[in-house]
């Protein structure tokens, strides 16, 4: 998968669309929305872990994009990269706002895993496990791993989005994978311990 859009649209077409969207043509922007809404949703989903919050933020990404599209500079940056950046900023703001504003019980509520309706139960559990592990990483690590392995972007593309050099992106990827492996191992051990405990409690 590349940044050309899920709809396998030639990059030139998207360039044309983007130009028209920059000129505030709603049609063109609507098409861009259709092309990119899924990937932005996925990205946000793995950052926030709740489908309702992901939907909310995804919508905000596109609203922001429309508001700010004047400021989108083509200069070889794919439109999707710009969207990912907006999404990243919104996710960061989201967490920042939540930390400051949300009463405790609300935070607890939204931290609960929410089953994504678009996934089967098993898939949903797996998605939640992956997200739980990702959530233990710092923002940059999360961002890079999602872009590289869930969105399937190249080092160069991911580096462009997070605003680093390709070499730096490799280093970040290395550390992020280390951290993720650790988080997954910890989660697994925890789950095993929990299972062991409940097994102990069984009679006999």
């Amino acid at each position, binding site marked *: 998968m590349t940044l050309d859009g899920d709809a396998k649209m030639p990059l030139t077409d998207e360039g044309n669309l983007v130009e028209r969207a920059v000129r*505030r043509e*709603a049609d063109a*922007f*609507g098409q861009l*929305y259709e092309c990119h*809404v*899924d990937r932005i*949703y*996925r990205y946000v*989903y*793995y950052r926030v872990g709740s*489908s*309702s919050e*992901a*939907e*909310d933020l*995804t*919508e*905000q990404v*596109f*609203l922001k994009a*429309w*508001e700010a599209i004047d400021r989108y500079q083509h200069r070889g940056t794919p439109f999707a990269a710009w969207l990912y950046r907006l999404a990243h900023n919104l996710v960061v703001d989201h967490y920042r706002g939540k930390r*400051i*504003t*949300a*009463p405790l019980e*609300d935070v607890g*509520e*939204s931290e609960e895993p929410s089953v*994504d*309706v*678009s*996934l089967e139960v098993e*898939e*949903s559990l*797996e*998605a939640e496990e*992956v997200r739980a*592990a990702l959530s233990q990483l710092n923002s940059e690590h999360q961002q890079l*791993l*999602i872009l590289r*392995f*869930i969105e*399937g972007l190249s*080092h160069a593309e991911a580096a462009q989005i997070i605003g680093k050099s390709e070499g730096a992106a*490799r*280093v970040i*990827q*290395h550390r992020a*994978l*280390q951290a*993720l*492996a*650790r988080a*997954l*191992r910890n989660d697994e051990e925890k789950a095993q311990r929990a299972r062991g405990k409940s097994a102990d409690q069984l009679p006999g």
Partner: protein
Amino acid sequence: MREENLLTSYLADLDQRNWDIDQYLAERTDLPETVQGMLRAAARLHSAPRPAPSGAFRHRSSQRLAAAMAVHRIEASTTRRAKLLAFTRWSRPRLRALALPTAAALVLMIGFSGAWTASAAALPGTPFYPAKLTAEQVQILLATTPEQQAQIQLQIASTRLSEAEAEVSDGNQTVVPTLLDRYQQAIAKAQAQAANISASDSRQQIMREISSLNAADHKITPRVTDKSNSSARPTPQTKVASAGPSQVSTKSSGLATTNQDVVEATASPIRVMATAPAKNESKPLAVATKVDTSPASTATTKDASTMSTIKDPIANPSLKVLVAAALSGNDSSATAAALAYIKQIQTNQGHAATGSDLQTQRAQLEHALQSAPTATRHAILLAIAALDSVSKSGSTAHAVAASPSETSPSKDHAVVAKPGNHQALPTSMDSNGSSGAPASNGGTSPDQSGKPTSSQNNNNRDHPGGSVGARLGRLGNGANHRDGSTSSSTPASQSKAGPDSGHGGSQPGASGSNHLQSGTGDASAPAAAGANRGGSASSNSSSSVKNGKHPLIQAIRSVIKRSNQRGQGTPRSPANSSSNANQPKQ
């Protein structure tokens, strides 16, 4: 090779093997355990499920996006124009020329005597106003300690609030959003300075002052309410003396005329509600008032639908700004836009706006209400309330002249007004009766509400253009209807909705339509609830009016409060929080 590059090459190999991690690791037993773990982690991410947004979300979101796109372009230009308008009056060169020497003189005055009262009463648009602002800046410069700074900012905030109040009661709302913005800025600065105060006593003192300023009832409400009462009270009586054939139409005319007076006086849509208690004071019975308003609104709708369109409603820039701001979820800009829009429709009231024009705008607002984020719904509700009051006052003359069948819509009125009910009601609290139930749920958003009952739907359909009461009852969650029959189980209605429970209790057979009627009659009450939503205590807006709290001021204050409380989550009024408690997360 550096380890990150090694990892990259392993990952490339893995990619070539289609991410079959088990096979790859079986081949590469030489890899250290940590690297294996990292590759497994990468593979797990690679095969992680790809959730997709729901179809409903796509639909909703693309609609909202389309709406935002449609209005955004206009918003940019209109906002600029609105800002210009807000400042035009004191940015004229002539005033500037005057302002500079005045400011200089004031600076001298402050420098030498500390007195700066000369311009203290200046309002935006008056020659002294820039001088007043300059004087404030000088005071800030002269303040050395955080405590002084905070005190001055508090003073500035309080001044802005008084100015906003003065402008509101002068019916001059263009500058109000700006003033409120500045109020908020000053409060924010005061809070920031307060945080720097080392002595906890004085810090707490400042914080107390901030919160009392936010409460600020004593400062704002009495004057405005007095004004509303004085302008509202005499009108119905004169109309009663001079007007129409039946009691019902006479009163509706009275109320509507009152609306217009009030609208002209203060440009506040919610004043419609303020007039209700004022009227009721001269009347012994509560429910009569509720009945009164209903024919007016019914007739209004019919009348409006027969009118021809003069203006294209979509060309209304303020409405577009409002919708855009509301959809963007920015609550203070939505409120500002709502105020601007209200001002505009009220200014145009006399000539341009026709019934169908307003109806179209209303429909657009309702549409926006359904997709707007919770934070900005109150702004739309405010605008809807204003629209209703304008359309009502604009077309009531026709309503009165209309056929008796239109003005005496149903037997339910007679039923509602029957003496038995009146006895069941606390007459002195009649205004509570008209607003208690809607106020308890006015803030509930449509998405979050339970399904309305079928009788509600039918009732609302019977009164298509209905009043705010009926409309918002439906847009809200219709719980006002429920209040009638089950008020004892609803916390908010327990204390406030006595009259409604009176209806339900005394006429079980007709409770459905009675509730509609009472809802319809409460034309302005739910609107006020909507306006007050999320803000200062609004569990009973009519009694607030009675107690001297002006609804618009409450609405404004609620905006201020909310922005101040952003650090503590979404504030809710007690009644709203009770009705919001079980809302599903959106």
